[in-house]
């Protein structure tokens, strides 16, 4: 890895909710223009980690640095202002609103003067169309409600939107978990397209196959702790899958199932 300042860095971060320890001793480095995968099963603490990175929660202990400087986020808006955009699984777009309105939601382009400002509709439609095309999403009609697009396309529009609005770090929350094989493929392609544009992607998933296709570095989370960390050059898919499934646990399970099947 290059010596460039990390886009994001967690040092020994912990998070407690009352007496519940959600995260403990998490250290993660996100290099610039790379794809960092955070893998974990349900309850591993992925959601809490996303919420810390995106400014929803503050860590209870440890350091959180953005480009080498300590991050002080009071809200997701602060994180967004620092170039950290999060695409949530099902909460990224508004189904009944058109594609272009979704694309520009919260970042509307306006013309006018003083307090009298109105939307520059034609410009926004045109930019939405060309930007989506640049990411490889070809829509005939940006006026159609985004709910009429497939799940993969909707995720892709959300990614394209974050990239266009200058996200330096893109946090993707299980972007492929609700999608079929082909749709997942589409989303993974946009993950790489975003990386090519210099964006650091944090890809949170429980699917080692998807992670292995795009990831440069992998962190394994289990029960709120960092279980393992791999560089791409040092790891094979089998190893990742096995580590992810908890190695020994999977062997025990395989044995048990074989016993059941042999009856």
């Amino acid at each position, binding site marked *: 890895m290059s010596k460039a300042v990390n886009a994001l860095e967690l040092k020994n971060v912990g998070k407690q909710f009352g007496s519940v320890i959600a995260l403990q001793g998490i250290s993660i480095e996100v290099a610039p223009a790379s794809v960092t995968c955070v893998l974990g099963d349900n309850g591993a603490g992925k959601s809490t980690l996303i919420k810390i990175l995106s400014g929803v929660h503050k860590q209870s202990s440890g350091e959180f640095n953005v480009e080498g400087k300590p991050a002080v986020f009071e809200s997701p*808006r602060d994180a967004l202002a620092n170039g950290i955009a999060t695409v*949530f699984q099902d909460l990224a777009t*508004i189904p*009944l*609103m058109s594609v272009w309105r979704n694309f520009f*939601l919260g970042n*509307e382009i306006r013309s006018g003067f003083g307090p009298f400002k*109105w939307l520059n509709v034609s410009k926004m439609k045109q930019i939405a169309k060309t930007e989506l095309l640049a990411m490889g999403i*070809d829509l005939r009609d940006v*006026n159609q409600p985004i709910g009429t697009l497939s799940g993969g396309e909707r995720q892709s529009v959300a990614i394209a939107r974050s990239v266009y609005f200058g996200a330096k770090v893109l946090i993707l929350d299980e972007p492929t978990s609700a999608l079929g094989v082909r749709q997942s493929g589409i989303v993974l392609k946009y993950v790489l397209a975003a990386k090519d544009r210099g964006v650091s992607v944090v890809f949170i998933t429980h699917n080692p196959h998807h992670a292995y296709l795009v990831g440069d570095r992998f962190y394994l989370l289990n029960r709120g702790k960092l279980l393992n960390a791999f560089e791409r050059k040092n790891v094979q898919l089998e190893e990742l899958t096995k580590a992810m499934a908890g190695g020994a646990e999977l062997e025990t399970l395989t044995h048990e199932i074989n016993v059941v099947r042999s009856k």
Partner: protein
Amino acid sequence: MTQASLVDERVKKASLITKILRRPEFGAFLGAIAIFILFATTDTTGNFAQLGGISGWTDIAAPIGIIGISVALLMIAGEFDLSTGVLVGTTGLLIGMLVTEFNMNIWLAILCAFIFAGTIGFINGYVVVKTKLPSFIVTLATFFILKGANFAYTKFVTGSVRVTGTDKAEGFDLAEAIFASKFGEANFQIALIWWIGITVIATFVLTRTRFGNWIFAAGGDANAARNAGVPVDKTKIMLFVYTALSAALVGTMFVLRLKGMQAGQGVGQEFYYIIAAAVGGTLLTGGAGSAIGASLGALIMGMAYIGIPYSRWDSDWTATFLGVILFTAVMINTYIGRKAKGGKK
């Protein structure tokens, strides 16, 4: 990156008809034409489609439309307001009492009424946003609180259940000219001009401003809107203030026109505003609707109120007729909406 494989051959180009069908007010537009034809043909006075008749039904429709639009915008943002009807009475009574009992200038009284209404709207919105209780319950409570207060306070101050004699107030003539005068040979109410103006402005705000975008987003999916940086709570509170202010506008119009006000004025009217919005294609779950739709809904109600007696039907059936229209309109709107979206959720 291969382009060809990414083009979805199943996406059809939206035709002009689909575009028209996609407009939320399309159903209400058809409905308004149908109701007009119905009453124009069954009319026994020969007056319904004349200027005099039009002046009559727009007189009924204008106040419903003025508040109905604000209620529609609030419903698009995903919230209800049941306190609008009673607030018409509250603001009218407030203006009446301030000028008759405290000899206040009518303009100052109107200003006080708007500030009072704005405060009620703000409280409604703030409580809904902070407690996360359903707005249906919060504004229902406001409705009953104000309903009781209207009677109790009016009796306490005036000794009766009504306020009279507001026309003796200082500044009344100009205020009447602006809020409650008539124009044209057929005696059109000035409220009609206010209503048309508000329809145009509300349509512009809803479809061509950032705030309008936020209204749709807040009602469409509040969480996704927040994630995109939309100030959902602020948007909702502002709309609660807007519905309350539009009630104050209508209250001002009534108290000037009637030169007084009954303590029970406006109670029960809140449902008419919601009917106008729903008939106009506003989704009750939020996220879709239009201002023009609400105005068309109000127009349909105005036509029914005048058309039923003109056709010599028993006007006791008016509410029943409106109920049938509400149900039919929402059915048709839902059906058209599904068709236009292409069958997906």
